[in-house]
């Protein structure tokens, strides 16, 4: 092997590493390894002086390989690769040894062994970096069109945001109208804006915006390709109509939620007692402008039950987030329409987070709503009243704030049904290749730092298909997704990491085993050549296909057999 010039840098990470690992002894030992031109330790390698140290050594000592023993590559691999690039060598001629998360932090009790392990890891990295090859990132074109799935408030907002920035959008809606679940509501909490007004404005603007094409009664049939270059097939509900094939660069999934089926809880008698209704049925009542029981009378006693299907072991453990404020809105609306009506509000915890909500809660108290607290995993029981009871129904609950078991009268009971993932969410997740959590909600790339992106590049999620949320949050997510996409479109081209799998076509037998295995649908089969090939942009370099290929035809770039063996030998050396 040709003579190499390797620079080795051991980071102290303040005391994070130095407290447990003797960095200086590692420097001394690795200095003796052939080809190691320079070895240094420093307080913080990731700091500017640390990076400059690497850059200066590459230039001054003509280094051609760099090893940094520091934290996890997830933390700073990119930092040091960039430093290598600035120094003038290919960023992939760099290797990182994790001596913090996988060494000093977990072996803090034994300095000697920890130092030995850190040395072994550093040696492994030195051994591996010898086999590194320079790699170049790929670029691909970015198609400026976007496909938006779902025309609720989130979908419409994302579509408008993208279209008004001058890019074509195709808005696909399963039903025959725009508006989604929001179109079923009357007023919105806590500021009592009319849902109709909120939607009307969006709908008018969508119709007036030329580069949005709206496809109603339509569904995504298939999606192939990768970021910047997806091909989507849209099927119309009408079987005789042709399928539409679209070329899009990004996809926003905003398919929304469905409400919990109240009949699943038998205690509430939904479907049996005529005046036990769901929140959506009550919204319909509010939109017609009259609050009446089935018998056509004004209720003298109204009860609102929270957390129907939510925050419960049996159904959904999560909070549906919007029901508390909606319930308070109902209390105020009933009191407004029928001032002498006795309104009781049966809740588990009052979740009044968010702007204006605490005031809204207080206002509901001021209109004289009776708040009754019941226990999690307990349930109020509703029964029909006897003729002498002076009301239609009686609700029995164990009231937590007083410790009393009480009975309250009710003529009308409103069940605050929670949100749940739509039945077709699994199908959508499969089509666009994103994951779902245990409740069926679509998963974010990172719940805090990357809440609208998914693990599949180019696929974004927004609104209540991600988790229950209110209108402002849905709109914010929709705009965030649109913002992310606009950023990608503005760059024009997409850069694809040089690390991906490659099929050696001469060796490929066309067995298609890898096609099925790839979790990112990144391998396509070329029917004419009868060979598989990897879409570099979609590949995440997980290595599944490399391990599975019976012909050994697939190579993981930057994770070649040779490199991995070298690393193992380094550890054992």
């Amino acid at each position, binding site marked *: 092997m040709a003579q190499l010039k390797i620079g080795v840098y051991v980071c102290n990470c303040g005391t994070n590493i130095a407290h447990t690992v003797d960095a200086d002894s590692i420097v001394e030992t690795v200095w003796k390894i052939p080809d190691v031109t320079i070895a240094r330790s420093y307080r913080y390698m990731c700091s500017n002086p640390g990076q400059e140290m690497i850059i200066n050594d590459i230039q001054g000592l003509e280094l051609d390989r760099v090893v940094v023993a520091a934290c996890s590559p997830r933390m700073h691999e990119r930092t040091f690769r960039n430093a290598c690039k600035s120094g003038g060598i290919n960023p992939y001629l760099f290797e990182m040894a994790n001596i913090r998360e996988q060494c000093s932090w977990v072996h803090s009790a034994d300095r000697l062994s920890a130092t030995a392990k850190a040395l072994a890891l550093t040696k492994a990295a030195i051994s591996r970096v010898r086999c590194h090859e320079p790699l170049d990132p790929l670029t691909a074109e970015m198609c400026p069109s976007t496909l938006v799935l779902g025309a609720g408030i989130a979908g419409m907002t994302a579509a408008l945001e993208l279209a008004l920035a001058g890019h074509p959008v195709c808005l696909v809606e399963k039903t025959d109208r725009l508006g989604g679940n929001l179109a079923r509501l009357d007023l919105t909490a806590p500021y009592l804006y009319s849902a109709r007004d909120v939607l009307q404005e969006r709908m008018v603007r969508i119709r007036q915006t030329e580069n949005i094409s709206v496809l109603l009664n339509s569904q995504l049939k298939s999606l192939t390709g990768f970021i910047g270059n997806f091909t989507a097939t849209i099927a119309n509900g009408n079987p005789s109509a042709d399928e539409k094939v679209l070329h899009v660069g990004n996809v926003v999934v905003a398919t929304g939620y469905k409400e919990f089926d109240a009949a699943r809880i038998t205690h509430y008698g939904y479907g049996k007692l005529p005046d036990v209704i769901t929140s959506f049925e009550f919204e319909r009542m509010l939109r017609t402008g009259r609050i009446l029981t089935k018998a056509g009378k004004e209720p003298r006693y109204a009860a609102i039950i929270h957390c129907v299907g939510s925050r419960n072991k049996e159904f959904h453990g999560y909070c549906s987030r919007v029901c508390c404020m909606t319930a308070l809105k109902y209390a105020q609306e009933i009191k407004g329409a029928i001032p002498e009506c*006795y309104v009781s509000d049966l809740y588990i915890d009052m979740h009044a987070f968010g702007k204006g909500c605490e005031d809204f809660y207080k206002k509901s108290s*001021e209109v004289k709503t009776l708040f009754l607290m019941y226990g999690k995993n307990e349930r109020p029981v509703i029964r029909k009243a006897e003729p002498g009871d002076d009301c239609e129904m009686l609700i029995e609950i164990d009231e*937590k704030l007083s410790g009393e078991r009480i009975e309250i009268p009710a003529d009308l009971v409103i069940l605050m049904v929670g949100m749940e993932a739509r039945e077709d969410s699994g199908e959508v997740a499969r089509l666009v290749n994103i994951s779902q959590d245990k409740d069926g909600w679509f998963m974010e790339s990172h719940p805090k730092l990357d809440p609208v992106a998914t693990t599949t590049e180019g696929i974004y999620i927004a609104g209540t298909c991600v988790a229950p949320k209110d209108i402002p949050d849905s709109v914010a997510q929709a705009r965030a997704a649109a913002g992310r996409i606009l950023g990608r479109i503005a760059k024009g081209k997409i850069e694809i990491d040089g690390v991906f799998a490659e099929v050696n076509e001469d060796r490929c037998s066309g067995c298609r085993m890898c096609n099925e295995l790839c979790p990112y649908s990144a391998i396509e089969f070329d029917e004419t050549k009868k060979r598989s090939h990897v879409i570099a942009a979609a590949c995440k370099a997980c290595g599944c296909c490399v391990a599975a290929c019976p012909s050994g035809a697939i190579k993981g770039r930057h994770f070649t057999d040779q490199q991995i063996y070298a690393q193992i030998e380094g550890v054992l050396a």
Partner: protein
Amino acid sequence: MAIRVNPKLIGELKRYGAEDVHNCYHCGNCSAVCTHADDVFVFPRRPMRFLQMGLEKRIEGILDPWLCYYCGQCSSQCPRGAEPGETMMSLRRWLTSRYDFTGISKLFYQSWKAEIAAILIVALLTASGFLWYGVSHGDIQTYDGPSAFLPSSMVHIFDWAMASVLVLLLGINSIRMWWLTTGSNEKTRGPWWAYLKCLYLLPLHFFTQKRYGKCETRRSWLIHLALMLSYVTMLVLIMFFLRLLQDGPGIRWAVHSFGYLASAGLLFTIGYAVYGRIRKTEVHLNHSHESDWIFLWMLLLVTATGVLQHVLHRTGTGMAANVAYLIHLALVVPMLTLEVPFSKWSHLAYRPLAMYLGDIHRIALARRPQAARAMESLKMAS
């Protein structure tokens, strides 16, 4: 067994002065700042909850409202403006009407017009009665001595007759209070010896109101104590030394010095309360029910006419003194006969009684089996 709520109770309490109870969301700040609340008597929070829910029987059965002296700390710490202090005050009014077997108290608290009308009727009856007696038995120019217009011997007998009626009425209502809060509940009824052991608490709390002294605002306690002691001094003078008090024209310092002191005490403390309620100077004076005003004005007028008749007599105008005396009697009789058993003044009996019964509750609860107590405290905590 589930208790049926009374949806109308909270509306009913509005007439007694509780207007903001709905605002309470049970953070518990009020009970945390209260120096008197403990784990047996969890107020104001517990009564607030019972009231919100309309659990009438439960409120009837608790002593909590009487253990509060209304320093107002709870109301000033309340994040929701639910006025727990005023709610306790309103509950005391409501409980007074519940203890009263005649139903007159309920009528008075719900309608100030009824109370004023009753006062006017009793005042007119009293005035005409004494006028008739004076005209037929004495001389309007003579204030003291055997031929006086309103001789002290006659007024003395009248005073004792009236006092007996008042004690009887208040006694019956106090027994009702014992039954509702203590006697009817086997958990709190307590053993017979507890009633003897705690007996000293009745005079102790009556005369010292020492629990009031533990409230954050010590000044309110001192003012209240001064008012009470002044009144009691005057009461003793009238009930036992009326002849000496009325005889003149010389000043009997052995008796009158107490009278002057008591009058000064009354005028000062009533003035303080009236000013405070008009200007809303302290939390507990922010909300004034009609019954508070009627009580205060009656007390002020009674004191003023009492002082006036004395001054007029000593300055030598017998007839004017007799007219002032007549007005004084026409005010003092309705004030005592209506305010003591049926209105604000009944707290002179209920409050010390509640302190007394409270300690009996503690003894009774401590004697209950451990398991039952644990269950109850658990229930309370949840």
